[in-house]
């Protein structure tokens, strides 16, 4: 009897050990990536790097246009995708009946979420750059990125809205509020932290994407700041791609420095989103 159970215990210990090893092997690369880029990129990043313009065919100087470009693209994406995404989430959570049409909407969202980013780039090229003649511009790039970001915002926002207890809505209606008043005054404010987290995570992805902006907005050698939404612009992800694959004699330090700036941009958004999420959880009144 004892022999049998200790064999099972051994099997368990082995199994647990294996899984623990797997988890470690999964996590270590993540830490390694971040640490590696920080260590190798930090020497390149100084004030001039962040605020200066590139010189010598991008081989020296700063990357300010790329930083500004990514900032504008993220802003542009937010302008289009946030109101639309939250609106769609409100529809799905508060208004949509349980029927075929609503199912179709959900399938469409799942679909949008799965489309490869380069296909978005193709679409953006075809529709915004060529057909609507916006040209290679921040406008075209933002619109493309917005549609790509839409499903993320809609799913997280809908989840946040649904988490608000139904009882609040019932009570609100029972004292004479309309549906929209209920949403505006109670449901939306309560869901806001969750929605915000989702928005920031969505925008974080948009900021880091290269393929959708390849043909719609990104320029490599454009060492000046964009003046209007119809201008093309440099952008951090695209910049990193080009300098690491297409420019001979590019100093490694600058490559790592650029990667570091992009990483910091993205990770800080992640940090903000996570902080909002945990703060809100603590302060909830339900």
């Amino acid at each position: 009897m004892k022999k049998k159970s200790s064999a099972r215990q051994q099997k368990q210990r082995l199994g647990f050990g294996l899984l623990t090893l797997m988890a470690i092997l999964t996590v270590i690369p993540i830490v390694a990536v971040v640490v590696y880029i920080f260590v190798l990129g930090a020497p390149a990043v100084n004030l001039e790097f962040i605020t200066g313009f590139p010189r010598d065919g991008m081989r020296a100087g700063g990357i300010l246009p790329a930083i500004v470009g990514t900032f504008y693209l993220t802003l542009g994406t937010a302008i289009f995708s946030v109101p639309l995404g939250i609106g769609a989430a409100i529809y799905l959570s508060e208004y949509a009946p349980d029927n075929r049409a609503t199912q179709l909407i959900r399938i469409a969202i799942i679909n949008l979420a799965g489309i490869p980013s380069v296909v978005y780039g193709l679409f953006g090229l075809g529709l915004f750059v060529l057909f609507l003649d916006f040209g290679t511009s921040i406008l075209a790039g933002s619109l493309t990125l917005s549609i790509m970001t839409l499903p993320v915002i809609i799913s997280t926002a809908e989840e946040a809205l649904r988490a608000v207890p139904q009882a609040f809505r019932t009570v609100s209606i029972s004292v004479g509020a309309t549906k929209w008043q209920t949403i505006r005054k109670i449901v939306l404010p309560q869901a806001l932290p969750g929605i915000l987290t989702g928005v920031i995570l969505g925008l974080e992805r948009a900021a880091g994407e290269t393929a959708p902006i390849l043909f719609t907005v990104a320029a490599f050698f454009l060492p000046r700041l964009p003046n209007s939404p119809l201008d093309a612009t440099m952008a951090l992800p695209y910049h990193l791609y080009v300098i690491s694959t297409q420019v001979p004699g590019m100093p490694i330090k600058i490559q790592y420095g650029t990667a570091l700036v992009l990483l910091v941009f993205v990770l800080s958004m992640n940090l903000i989103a996570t902080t909002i999420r945990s703060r809100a959880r603590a302060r909830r009144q339900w």
Partner: protein
Amino acid sequence: MNKITIENLSLKYSDGTESLRDINLEIPDQQISVIFGPAGGGKSSLLRTLNRLNDLADVVEREGTIKIDDQDIYQPGYDVIQLRRIVGMVFARPVVLPMSIRENLTYGLEVAGIRDPNLLENVLETSLKKAALWEEVKDRLEDPGVALSGGQQQRLCLARVLALEPEVILLDEPTSGLDPISTGKVEESLQELKKEYTIILVPHSVQQAARTADQAAFLLQGELIEVASGEVMFTNPQQQRTQDYIQGRFG
């Protein structure tokens, strides 16, 4: 004087539950009318037809009329929003909105476009006093509503309803989550309130029904079995089924 007249009311939901069958009932003014019966009998449904809260549920069929002050509340063009102010509801679990005590009370007024701070303060104080809560919270109106105890929260919900100057107050098992002392306080308040308002109560026990009812109606599986005064119903009911239920032979 009959405040509410229900005629031939039938109700069916899309999944077949909680339907009402041919209800005929008169609710007199300035009395506590009690609607009691076993679970699933349609009591909540009946209550929700009175403030048209069941407009939000998927009702498949509705027949009959409900008249308040001789006005059919289901006629096209009827002001449903105003109806819900006139007919207030207190739910089984106290639902306190995620705001301060003050904001909870003024919510109904705010959505009705009332901004005058003096008016709001007046209404606040009056309704809290009527709900017997004023003394306990007058110094902590800015505290979040959830900071109150269960019994206090329920009285807050009552005050919230009173702030809109209703004419009818519906209470759906309002004391089911409360301790006996809080329950007693609520029942006391009802006796005071009935002087001004029409009270309709779904009790959470037969005993509570017996304690509070001026008029009692027994609802079983969507059908109105018997209606009588409180005294008669709980000492000498006419129908066998009513007697069986009151004596606890089923439930």
